[in-house]
């Protein structure tokens, strides 16, 4: 399985991880070696096999729609890299009008 620079750029953007171009050759090689390991799954006949999402085939239990967690905004925001007036701060997302 060959990974092209363009593929790696696209995957890295989907994963939102910036990757320095210097690492491309070694990283492509590592990822190819993992995909090479993985390709063995193609040899299995799974024609009539259902996918197994849960190791014990159990389903998600449902609970009553009740509020169980307290409002702990201040406590939780102590770990925030940047916050103000109870809000998380991020770079501006609205484009300048001109």
């Amino acid at each position: 399985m060959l990974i092209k620079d363009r593929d790696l750029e696209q995957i890295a953007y989907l994963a939102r991880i910036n990757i320095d171009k210097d690492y491309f050759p070694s990283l492509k090689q590592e990822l190819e070696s993992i995909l090479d390991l993985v390709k063995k799954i193609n040899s299995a006949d799974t024609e009539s096999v259902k996918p197994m999402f849960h190791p014990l085939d159990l389903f998600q239990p449902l609970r009553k729609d009740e509020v169980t967690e307290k409002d702990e905004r201040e406590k939780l925001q102590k770990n925030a890299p940047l916050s103000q007036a109870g809000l998380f701060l991020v770079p501006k997302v609205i484009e300048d009008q001109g």
Partner: protein
Amino acid sequence: MPELYQLTIKEKLEGLKNSSFSSLELTESYLERIKRIDPELNSYITVIEEEARVKAKESDQRYQAGSPLPLDGIPIAHKDIFCTEGVLTSCGSKMLANFISPYSSTVVKKYEESGSVVLGKTNMDEFAMGSSNETSYFGPVKNPWNNKCVPGGSSGGSAACVSAGLAAGATATDTGGSIRQPAALCGLTGIKPTYGRVSRYGMVAFASSLDQGGVLTKTAEDAAYLLKAMSGHDPKDSTSLNVEVPDYINEINQDIKGLRIGLPKEFFSMNLPQHVEKSISDALKVFEKLGTKIKEVELPHLDLSLPVYYVIAPAECSANLSRYDGVKFGYRCENPKDLDDLYMRTREEGFGPEVKRRVLIGTYALSAGYYDAYYLKALKCRRLIAGDFDNAFKSVDLILSPTAPDISFALGEKSSNPVEMYKQDIFTIPANLAGLPAISIPCGKHKGLPLGLQLMSKSLEESKLLRTAHHFQLNSDWHKSWPSL
């Protein structure tokens, strides 16, 4: 007279009850050893000295009042993947190197309620991704049996600290072998229970359909004490099993005569090193002497395990780790110019190389056009593997194999070749894929380094695993030795 750290948990509890020593004395003896030995091993990320003393004193008061809790005064350590309120919970990553957890995981709470004293949080591979503890942001852990070698991973810190007598036992997690492989490499007992037996609430997620908490201890009996304390249904984890937890401690003495132990021929046709084969055949003699029956079984799809795992685990990890975005908690890059730049540089700088590789592989396997070929196909193969176990357990009670392909290896030996490293888990991954419980116990030594064997059973039969391991340990000495430090 053995030193305090060398006593089993049962002996420690008896000593505390008889006032042979106090919980504070026991705790101080561990803190002293940590100060002396851990700077070299690096098994702890955080030691919570003062808090441990406070808890030990509370425990002593309960003994004086004659109403001790089940694990009162037993000093343990938690893998740094279990959220602990008010304490750094780093998961071995730069991404969480400043994360003081605002709440405690169910596992941490259950140990608090059992009266145990927490000495600190142990080192680990970053986000539990690794088999050598070399991917930790906090530096590698060394194997107490040979400080040029790795302790295994991802629970390498927990394994090294228990093996060196720096805690009476430690919590750990296992997604593809992260409890059992370090147990084998450090000469310990390590049990990964059935998927859903131990709550995952507050346990930092790596691959949610595979992750399971468990323990690392010197003996199977110690493991029974700790596993009992941490197991049970938790409404806060939707995958937690609502079934009763047996009394592992009492059931451990029940006979194992007549149990049928299966040897998968696929594992034993792998060209194992001679010393590994010998340790297994010696162990089989012990099991035969104990009245068990040994027979060959077939697990025809076993060779799919590693490939299936390296689709499913990265896929789930890429989804789980999307939460680390530099906004609500954890690391954040400096001077982001826009939102995408904030995400992309935060994750570039906050994650190490192995985590990035797995997130990228997972993203690829889940991306449009590849989902069916990789992820869905792997999930179908997963059912084939689970089906193999269902069939095998029709004719045997337990399945035995080596835990790891060989003894521990030198620091740096495999870190530049991810796929070589992944092969460390070739024997342990199948149990995670099928959700089955499995235990590793010491069964030999080669070049002064421990070897381990693994037993797997049907779901929810942890008691049978502990019992079989315990009877083996009553008839062998591998678990008794301590590294000289």
